[in-house]
């Protein structure tokens, strides 16, 4: 197990270095000067030059790359050009929205997907299975932003049960904050739940056809006992993979939903950073996300190993 973890750790480190180079290179190629953007149409050229100096945009590429990476290693993510506050402060603020939202949505989607995936698999070929397959097909097909707008129209504009968007902050109380995240989480969770349920169903059906299940049944276990004791655990590997991917997606990929509900999340921070050429913010946040995705993949790998002993001992 230790050796398995160690090799994964080395590849994690190499991926991070490669990612930092790619991110920096891409940002360098993009046209657009943050100073010119900030000062607008009437600015005098010398005012733009003075601002470039102030922002430290005039150094050589190598020097700027090294100071960026060096800063990140010591925990200093630099200062936002436009907001003029430390990037770490911005990211932390946004994480308090994006992380709970991602977990909330993931929790919902798992809660929905597990039982219906289980039902569909155990009732394979019967009406319940067909019903679930049709519903999840629809869930995968419906774009989540459209579904989100529908939720807003019904629950915010007509019924007035929820506000149309925004986030009051955690200091307004856990209830108010979770309430504000409910519609976004539901609209994020439904398509994810549909995918997860379908994966769950096919994984279970596959394991149910295995010899050891027949043996278990022959031993006298009921169908239900065979599923819960043997099939479920073995069907978990593909399901875990999907959950890991979904979490990474939800963390930063919720940008469209963040726009529909005007939530101050990480996705919008990156989007804003790109349009305003707040390059430090873009670089550092993208790097953090890469780190998060790689870390989640690493943890999922470890979870595989825990779920499937064969992976631990494979050389």
């Amino acid at each position: 197990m230790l050796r398995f973890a160690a090799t994964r750790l080395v590849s994690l480190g190499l991926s991070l270095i490669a990612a930092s180079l790619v991110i920096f290179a891409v940002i360098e190629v993009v046209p657009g000067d943050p100073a010119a953007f900030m000062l607008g149409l009437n600015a005098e050229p010398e005012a733009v030059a003075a601002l470039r100096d102030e922002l430290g945009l005039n150094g050589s590429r190598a020097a700027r790359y090294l100071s960026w990476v060096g800063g990140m290693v010591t925990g200093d993510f630099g200062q936002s050009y436009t907001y003029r506050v430390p990037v770490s402060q911005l990211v932390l603020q946004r994480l308090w929205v994006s992380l709970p939202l991602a977990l909330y949505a993931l929790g919902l989607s798992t809660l929905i997907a597990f039982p219906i995936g289980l039902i569909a698999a155990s009732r394979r070929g019967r009406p319940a299975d067909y019903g679930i397959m049709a519903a999840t097909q629809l869930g995968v097909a419906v774009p989540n932003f459209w579904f989100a707008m529908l939720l807003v129209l019904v629950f915010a504009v007509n019924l007035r049960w929820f506000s149309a968007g925004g986030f009051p902050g955690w200091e307004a109380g856990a209830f108010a904050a979770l309430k504000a995240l409910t519609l976004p989480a539901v609209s994020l969770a439904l398509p994810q739940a549909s995918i997860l349920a379908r994966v769950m169903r096919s994984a279970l059906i596959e394991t149910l056809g295995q010899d050891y299940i027949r043996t278990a049944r022959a031993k006298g276990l009921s169908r239900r006992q065979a599923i819960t004791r043997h099939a479920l655990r073995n069907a978990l590997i593909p399901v875990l993979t999907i959950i890991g991917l979904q979490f990474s997606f939800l963390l930063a990929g919720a940008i469209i939903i963040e726009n529909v509900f005007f939530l101050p999340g990480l996705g919008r921070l990156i989007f804003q950073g790109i349009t305003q050429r707040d390059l430090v913010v873009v670089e550092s946040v993208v790097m953090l996300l890469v780190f998060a995705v790689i870390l989640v993949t690493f943890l999922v790998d470890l979870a595989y190993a825990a779920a499937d002993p064969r992976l631990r001992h494979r050389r």
Partner: protein
Amino acid sequence: MRIIRMTAAALALGAGPALAAQDTITLGMQLEPPNLDPTGGAAAAIDEVTYANIFEGLTRFAADGAIIPGLARSWDISEDGLTYTFHLAPGVTFHDGTAMDAGDVKFSLDRARAEDSTNAQKALFAGIADVAVIDPLTVRITLSAPDGGFAFKMAWGDAVIVAPESAETNAAAPVGTGPFKLARWVQGDRIELERHPDYWGAAPALSKATFRFISDPNAAFAAMMAGDVDAFPVFPAPETLEQFKADPRFTVIVGSTEGETVLAMNNKQKPLDDVRVRAAVAHAINRQDIIDGAMFGYGTPIGTHFAPHNPDYIDLTGISAYDPEKSKALLKAAGVSDLTLRMALPPPTYARRGGEIIAAQLREIGITTEITNMEWAQWLEQAFRGKDFDLTIVSHTEPMDIGIYARPDYYFQYDDLGFQALLALLDNTSAPEARSGLLKAAQGKIAMDYVNGYLFQLAKTGVANAKIKGLWENAPTQANDLTGVTWEE
């Protein structure tokens, strides 16, 4: 559903008396200000939060665009027009409790015109030769040449008075002299202002104001409808305005802005350096089609680079009236055929939608356009600074900015000695009638030279709760002045 609605209505009625003295407001804005320092950035959103609320200048714009006293109660102009003496209001304090005096005025103006200044409108201060403190409440500003528009220039958001102790940190923690101070900024979500208890002037009726940032037009619509925001002064979904008009809970506020929207032409790029080709392009444009198609009918046609609500405006739309036959004849006379022009379009809807319509109109007279959609940053670098474009569409939102036509290196590259002389004369003239005549001549000159295709004055279309009074209808400068805003009982 009906029961729920009735319950909600009953609750709202029950809560009525308690809400009668509502003194808080939530405003929606499409873009978040990048920072809150109006002396170090051009983003309109900075002024939309800070102007007249957090920061004040020597003079200021009133709702109708008139220049009225701000921190200066009055000012005297010397006979030769070279010296302005400003008399400051007594008892003014910054939000941090320190007193505002003539020293702060000198510091602010000297900082804005310094060599390393990062002021986005540095040209406003270019005419200042010296700023002298006479006594704590008197400042004497000497100009290098007479300038009849100096009080106007001091009203801009870029010319507000800041304190030496806080000037460098205003971006994140603004310290001004205004009736409101920053209470909280949740980046990406909202900015909260609260009443400054020691404000030197009349206290505003509102105790708290929140600006929420909602960029998506659909979300803006939902937020208004759900009552999450009380007003959206520049509403991003004009197609829904009819729905708000029909709803008694809301008022739709339609006003004018300082935004002259032009089809800018690169005057140094062949064949647009030929005035006949530029005239051909101008005559091919049907302004009303663009206003209807791109702006849902909101906007006033213009024939020159000047705001129609300005008293010195003259209607010159006739000079470049829609006449495709004339365009074809002009192109023929210029010996141009099979013309293809590159059109660079920045993100706003007026540009993207307007660009498609203009491309279709140019096709009618045999000009092909290649449209490139750009982000602002890319547009600024390639079209604006690099001058690598033939046509582009931009709304010039600065007030009274006809002076950009006297800058030969400005992006559309109009280099005309006659016009430059006219503007130099204007700068040195302070008699109102003479100024008016010169301004009219300047409007005529750029219209006859077909420098750009003048499209329309951008309208300001906003939506507000019907009970809110005192929001600005027009936008003489980009601002949400909350000092006079009240809730009707």
